């Protein structure tokens, strides 16, 4: 497509995409139509009750499927620039956005009905008390539609539609994690029942969404700027290794233990209140070995690519790509075996090893009102025997469930998708580069999205601070979620200033935008998942 535009540009000053007559609003239809549709569905759901729409969980799954399809169409379009494919991808994404937003809105009503709207009838609260911003599932669904909306808005011109090829895979991963988290409701902690919640979390989901788009754009910028796919392979490997190291530093490995090559999930007990996660790990036979080998092949690939980059050794590159493919196969096998084991393993309770009794006992003893563990003041033997007794009594009820460890399961998929993209970028990368818009244009889009994300994160921090001051009595307490959001904001601040600092613009700016989004993700997941703090629910 860019070839065509270039030649027209040369002969005719006005680019064909701009016409004084065609109203600009038409270009925004893929973003506006689903928005309107979802609002209509919302109104119908309120007026006619649960029978007129699918359940919120179903809508979210439909959204996920649409996004995956859209991502595939748009990625293919990178190499095969066919207008139909692009349009198909765009409108499927648009459909996905409709499902995604509808799912969230339907959940709003379902959440209210679940409590019989008691907050509105008895406490003088508003409809916004039931806004689905209560846990990580809600926030992930909102994050996904925020990012989808931002992507569709930016896709308002033909030469910016490429962005969906990168942002929809990321959005799919977020929604996939949401599906693994599961759509069961939680009782809203009273401190969260404030009118600041829709404002604060709403700003979060939209600015996180825009940040996701800026990340995708930065990756595209680096590809266009000639960063080798091999260098990206090294970066991806480094990212996962750093991730493992951070998790280990924060209190030991979780699902995967690289020392014993075992990969385990928490067993769960299905009760009336939903799933109860037991803090033991049930190793899934074979999965740990496959996952370990996937990681090792990634590390080997990174080493070979480093040799290629620094020594310009062509055979290292070739072997590196072979190893990359091997890692892809291994990762797919890991995920396949993972699902097989989760679905077929029985007698899970008997697999709890005795060295895990302490952890279980620790969990069972719970916390006192101040949040301190009750087990801390107990002799170790008591804690262990409490755990052992529990396993003896409830071992039969323990099962494996895909919803037990959503973040870790989503991480498996994220690694796979990242590896796939490294492989894709290595495939006919010259042609890929040719099909991308100019560096300047991408840069201008990054600047725009980072600007919006920066302003959004500032509002997020400010609304969070004001809310905290109204309910906890301090506007800033260095809570890990607060600090995380601040750090991401600072990274974007670094990006903005790198543009006016001599010699820092271009690629170095793009790195700041990349890091900014990784920090957003760290704030969004890492903080709830590995750090203690006030935001532990979401």
């Amino acid at each position, binding site marked *: 497509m860019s070839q065509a535009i270039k030649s027209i540009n040369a002969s005719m*000053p*006005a*680019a064909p995409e701009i*016409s*004084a007559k065609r109203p*600009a609003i038409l270009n925004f239809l893929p973003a506006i139509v689903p928005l309107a549709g979802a609002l209509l569905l919302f109104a119908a759901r309120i007026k006619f009750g649960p029978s007129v729409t699918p359940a919120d969980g179903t809508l979210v799954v439909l959204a996920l499927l649409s996004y995956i399809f859209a991502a595939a169409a748009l990625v293919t379009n990178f190499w095969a620039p066919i207008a139909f494919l692009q349009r198909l991808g765009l409108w499927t994404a648009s459909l996905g956005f409709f499902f995604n937003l509808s799912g969230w809105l339907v959940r709003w009503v379902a959440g209210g009905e679940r*409590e019989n709207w*008691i*907050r509105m009838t008895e*406490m003088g609260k508003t409809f916004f008390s039931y806004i689905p911003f209560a846990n990580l599932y809600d926030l992930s669904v909102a994050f996904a539609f925020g990012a989808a909306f931002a992507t569709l808005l930016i896709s308002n*011109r033909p030469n*910016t539609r490429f962005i969906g090829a990168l942002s929809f895979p990321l959005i799919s991963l977020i929604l996939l994690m949401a599906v693994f988290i599961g759509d069961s409701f939680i*009782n809203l*902690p*009273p*401190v969260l*029942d*404030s009118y600041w919640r829709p404002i604060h979390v709403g700003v979060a989901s939209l600015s996180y969404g825009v940040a996701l788009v800026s990340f995708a754009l930065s990756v595209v910028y680096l590809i266009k700027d000639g960063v080798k796919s091999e260098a990206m392979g090294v970066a991806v490997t480094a990212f996962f290794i750093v991730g493992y190291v*951070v998790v280990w530093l*924060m209190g030991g490995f979780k699902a995967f233990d690289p020392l014993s090559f075992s990969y385990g999930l928490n067993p769960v007990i299905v009760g009336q209140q939903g799933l109860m996660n037991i803090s033991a790990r049930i190793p899934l036979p074979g999965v740990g070995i496959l996952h370990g080998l996937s990681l090792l092949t990634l590390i080997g690939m990174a080493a070979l690519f480093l040799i290629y980059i620094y020594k310009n050794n062509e055979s290292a590159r070739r072997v590196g790509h072979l190893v990359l493919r091997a890692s892809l196969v291994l990762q797919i096998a890991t995920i396949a075996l993972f699902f097989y084991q989760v679905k077929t393993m029985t007698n899970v309770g008997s697999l709890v090893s005795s060295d895990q009794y302490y952890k279980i006992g620790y969990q069972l003893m719970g916390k006192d*009102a*101040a*949040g*301190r*563990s009750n087990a*801390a003041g107990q002799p170790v033997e008591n804690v262990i025997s409490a755990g052992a007794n529990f396993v003896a009594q409830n071992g039969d009820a323990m099962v494996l469930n895909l919803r037990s460890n959503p973040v870790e399961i989503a991480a498996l998929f994220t690694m796979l998708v990242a590896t796939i993209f490294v492989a894709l970028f290595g495939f006919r990368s010259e042609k890929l580069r040719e099909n991308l818009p100019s*560096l*300047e244009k991408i840069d*201008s889009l990054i*600047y*725009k999205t980072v*600007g*919006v994300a920066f*302003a959004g994160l*500032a509002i997020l921090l*400010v609304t969070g601070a*004001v809310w905290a001051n109204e*309910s*906890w*009595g*301090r*506007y800033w307490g260095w809570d*890990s979620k607060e*600090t*995380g959001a601040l*750090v991401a904001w*600072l*990274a974007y*601040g*670094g990006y903005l*200033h*790198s*543009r*006016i*600092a*001599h010699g*820092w613009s271009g690629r170095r700016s793009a790195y700041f935008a990349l890091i900014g989004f990784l*920090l957003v993700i760290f704030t969004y997941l890492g903080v709830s998942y590995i*750090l*203690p703090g006030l935001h532990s629910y979401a």
Partner: protein
Amino acid sequence: MAGASDAAVEDAATGVAEIEKPRSGGGQKASGLSGAIDRILSLLSSVPFGIVLLMLLIIACMIGMLIQQQELDSFPAYYAELTPAEKTVYGRLGFFDIYHAAYFNLLLLLLSLNIILASIDHFPTAWSFIARKKLTASPTYAMAQKFKEKVEIPQLGRKQLTERASEAARKMRFKVRLTEEDNRTTIFAERGVWNRLGAYLVHIGLLTIFAGGFMTSRGFTGMMEVSPNKSSNRMIQNVFNIDNANTQHAIGQRELELPFTIEGVDIQQKLINKSGSIDAGNTLDWLTRVRIVDQEAGKTTEALIHMNTPFDYRGYRFFQASFNPLGSARTIKLKVTPANGSPQEITIQRNGEAKLADGTRVRYIEFNPHFVVGSDQKVTFGSAEYENPAAHLAYVTPSGEQGDVWAFTQAGVNQMSNAPFLKSKFLDTGAFHFVLTDFEKVPFAHTLSIQFDPGARVVYVGFTILCLTLIAVFFFSHQRLWIVIEDGAVYLGGNSNRNRLGFEDRAKKLAALIREPVQAV
């Protein structure tokens, strides 16, 4: 639209972005002290130095997130699991309280200085966009801009084209200024020039927040437990003390005196399921009613504090912070059966009184959610849960006969009938038989957080400035277009500091407007 050639033509005064220029002072070697001050100042005011400070701040914050901070509830357990070497190293580096470490404050101070100095350094350039507008341009200049377009309409003269172009520019909502020269006319079309100043206002907002934060650090916060009929003018503050040499840490408490007294009037907990537990998970709200008795001001104020609704008094703010989870009852309902009479129902508030039909006064003294009798024959709490609820009552009959008694639920009464000793000691005492028929659950006490924060207002002002200016900066842009008109030809060239694609759309539409009517003729 290649970047390199454009950049070369761009001159500093009209540049799209303000590019950091190496300071001229760096070239000439000034000697001695003034040279050193110059170099320090030029470092402090440079944007790259600011970026380095930002990165250091990011690293410090990451350390603060990954290493638990001493005020966290989970800190004692975390600290206990660290090795002595980790305790010593982290402790000496101040990592357990990094946000209050001297070097962290120094970092913030340097960043503030950098913001101020760099702003002073860059401001003249931004101001020149407003004060010294470039009103004329040559076709060459216009064609060297990032956006450029030439419209040729041979049949129209300079005057007609000028009219057409200025009308088009106004239609596209540009501010238009016309300059006639001998051989050409320049229309300087501009939008949103104030956007150039936005960045400075953002930084003023940021500095205001920093200043407010400094003022807040002069304030203090404490906790006070409140229950009905209890009054106090002291609040408790946690004091953290880490002894690096002995790798020990301790959390102490300190009492702070308030200039007024808080009297508990009533505490209430609204539950989702009224017969469920008083855990946070089953709670809609906690409400605390207090009376603030202020001797200094000579007045008494009633206050209601509940979740997300603090109360302000004399610069102090009261928040609903937490609760003591020992189960209690806000009101109790009793069925009272006199030895020779018919049963009657009464309801008594916590610490309140009620009168029976015969004039006997019954007072509700205390509540025990899990009534057990210890080996020493004394009543104690079996647990904090409502396992065997009982209310302790005192009564005075009209004839002056006094006594105290426990009222149990019907289940409790039935259970006690199997234990004759307990029955005789706690149940069959006196002229009345009490049954606890219902009660409204409430915790034993609520905890208020009391904060004195002299900086909050300043911080809020900073927040407002920051949000408004950031929106103003990033959702608008400064767009300039030079429309150079000669006979039969219009040269359009321009740039925008932000939203380049949007600007170019607008400029292209403008060019199309100049061109279109002629083509229609």
